[in-house]
């Protein structure tokens, strides 16, 4: 911009020098971690790398398979055995103890099918062998399969025959985000209107309130709602005192609590873009409409509101994208039925050390957000091209 166009080469060189550090840091500490997370979602971990002899063994020869498995087991150290067993157990519950018990004694077991079955009769069951055969490759789609409920049938075709719990959770995430978006827009519109159109003193007061709220930590605002909404909290105490209710209402750990607190947290993000658009609308337009005989409500609906749609759209998009990834607020104010996909991602990392599932769900969430941003960008671009004010 301000760099004079006389020596473009110099500007480019300066840009390069300035950008080296930020680009390096972004690549190493931001793009690479996200990339490795994506890789992790299809990585089969130790399981995909440790069954080496088994992978090459003749499938039709049961004894050769058994011998190969025992060879692999003996080649693993304790940590690898544990990690392989964890991967197998994610495929089939109970495989962990079977694998570990056998692996620990692998030196003493006769390397035949009969020897394995004599050690533990479960080795006679075909399901265990099938699981291992499916997992000899270093890459796997099983995390995405589990996340989407899609499974490969015997003919190699994708069918929706799997467990759809995570599809339900993703659907729930979308539903909550839409609910929060609508409530947020409904509440923030009058506030944005007040900032743009009320008398300066009142407008300034509302603006200060919005900015204070915006700068207050999300966690602090969530804390306030936890304290307000708890069974012995302020809202219930007030309602009991007025006599409106006889028994405390359940206001928290359910959808109501989750939506109220999320809405409150997201309000400033909706108010600010709407306010910016509303400020550009000249007041004279309303006066003109009124002078032509339109009532105030008609003026609002036909003249004012259509011009604010752009601000509303920006607010809606921002709130929706932020709401999709919410974790802290619903985890503190929602019940088990109101947890969004983030909650399950955190649980996979923190509780079951299942990085594969955490990554697969993260990739799906990130994908959803990027798709929405792309649609958004395309819409803006199209509007700019068709001559509208973008």
């Amino acid at each position: 911009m301000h760099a004079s166009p006389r020596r473009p080469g110099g500007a480019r060189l300066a840009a390069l020098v300035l950008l080296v550090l930020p680009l390096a840091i972004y690549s190493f500490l931001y793009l690479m971690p996200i990339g490795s997370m994506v890789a992790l979602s299809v990585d089969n971990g130790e399981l995909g790398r440790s069954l080496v002899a088994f992978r090459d063994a003749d499938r039709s020869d049961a004894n050769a398979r058994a011998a190969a498995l025992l060879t692999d087991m003996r080649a693993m150290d304790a940590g690898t055995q544990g990690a392989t067993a964890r991967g197998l157990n994610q495929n089939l519950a109970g495989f962990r103890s079977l694998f570990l018990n056998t692996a620990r004694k692998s030196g003493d077991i006769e390397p035949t099918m009969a020897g394995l079955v004599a050690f533990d009769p479960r080795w006679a069951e075909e399901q265990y062998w099938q699981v291992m055969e499916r997992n000899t490759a270093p890459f796997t789609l099983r995390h995405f399969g589990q996340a989407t409920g899609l499974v490969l049938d015997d003919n190699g075709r994708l069918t929706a025959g799997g467990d759809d719990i995570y599809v339900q959770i993703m659907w729930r995430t979308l539903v909550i985000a839409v609910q929060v978006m609508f409530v947020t827009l409904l509440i923030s519109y009058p506030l944005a209107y007040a900032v743009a159109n009320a008398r300066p003193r009142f407008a300034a007061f509302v603006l200060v309130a919005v900015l204070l709220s915006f700068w207050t930590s999300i966690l602090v605002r969530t804390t306030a709602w936890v304290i307000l909404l708890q069974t012995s909290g302020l809202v219930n105490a007030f309602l009991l005192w007025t006599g409106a209710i006889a028994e405390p209402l359940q206001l928290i750990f359910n959808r109501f609590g989750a939506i109220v607190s999320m809405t409150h947290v997201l309000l400033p993000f909706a108010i600010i873009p709407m306010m910016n658009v509303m400020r550009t609308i000249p007041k004279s337009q309303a006066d003109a409409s009124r002078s032509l005989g339109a009532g105030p409500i008609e003026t609002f609906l036909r003249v004012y509101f259509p011009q604010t749609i752009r601000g509303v759209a920006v607010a809606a998009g921002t709130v929706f994208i932020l709401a999709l990834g919410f974790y802290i607020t619903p985890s503190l104010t929602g019940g088990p039925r109101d947890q969004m996909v983030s909650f399950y991602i955190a649980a996979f990392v923190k509780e079951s050390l299942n990085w594969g599932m955490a990554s697969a769900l993260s990739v799906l969430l990130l994908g959803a957000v990027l798709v929405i941003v792309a649609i958004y960008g395309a819409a803006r671009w199209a509007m700019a091209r068709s001559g509208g004010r973008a």
Partner: protein
Amino acid sequence: MKVIGIATLCAIVAAPVAARDVTIAGWGGNYQDAQREAYFKPFAAKSGANFTETTYLGGLAEIKAMVDTNNVSWDFLIMGGSELQLACDEGLLEPLDWEAIGGKDDLLPGAAMDCGVGNVVIGNGFAYNSEVFPTPPQDWRDFFDRDKFPGKRGVNNTPQFNLEYALMADGVPPDQIYEVLATPEGVDRAFAQWDKIKDLLQYWESGAQPVEWLASNNVALSTAYNGRIIMAKREGKPLEFVWKNHVVNMDGWAMVKGSPYKDQLTEFIQTVNDPENQAKFSSLMPYGPSNTLAATHLSPEIVAGLPAGDNIKEAAFMSDAFWIDHLDELRERWSRWSTQ
């Protein structure tokens, strides 16, 4: 000038810690306070080592990171029984030398493990407010009986223990629950029990919540840890713990693999196994000793609040092995059930 200032600042904030003390990770709060008196101080006195403490929040992620990056900053830590076994399987803990430690036979069955020792015995059952129910609930059948004992129930949002409770309510004897639970029909049976009171459930996340909820009549009954209820009772709250058919589990001590204080491992394990030290812990914190000899050092009033003696006559013992195999699968099923 500014650059130097910033560099100095960075140097100050990132100063590395030289040769560190023995670091013990516990679960914080009263629990760790009691352990400091009963175990850490005697250990320090005996071994001559200085110790510092830190908090461990559960899960294997932190320990795995330490071992994998060879940056072991904790030495001893207390873990839930299943997690201890898992960590042992994954090679994250130092194995114990039971011949050097000795006294294995005095411990409760299952307490002496390859990489750790069960130390704190916890009673998992349910509690009620004695002011609300003049005729108190007796067993799990009553917990699941919505007509006889109306009102909301506080429940931890996990399948662990809850499925065991349900089976015992359905008449399965305590020593057979894991055989039944290992079959798909057994799991269905457990969930069928929970279906009966599903609309009454309110989920707790921390052990403090059942106490608060029961004391404020927010729920009528709640599953709980015995220690929290007994402590509240000592503070004068009208709460009672139901001992019949409670499920016993153990927390245990272990050492992170690669710790520089490996020489002290045997001494530390001996200290936490010592019956007198254990008795001291149980007198401070109403959880049971894992050493059967500890009871002789405790008064009958204290024993009455512990998962020990008469209280565990009809108890079930949690199977770490079962849960290590089935936790992922059953957790998924439980979360589907609880969210529908």
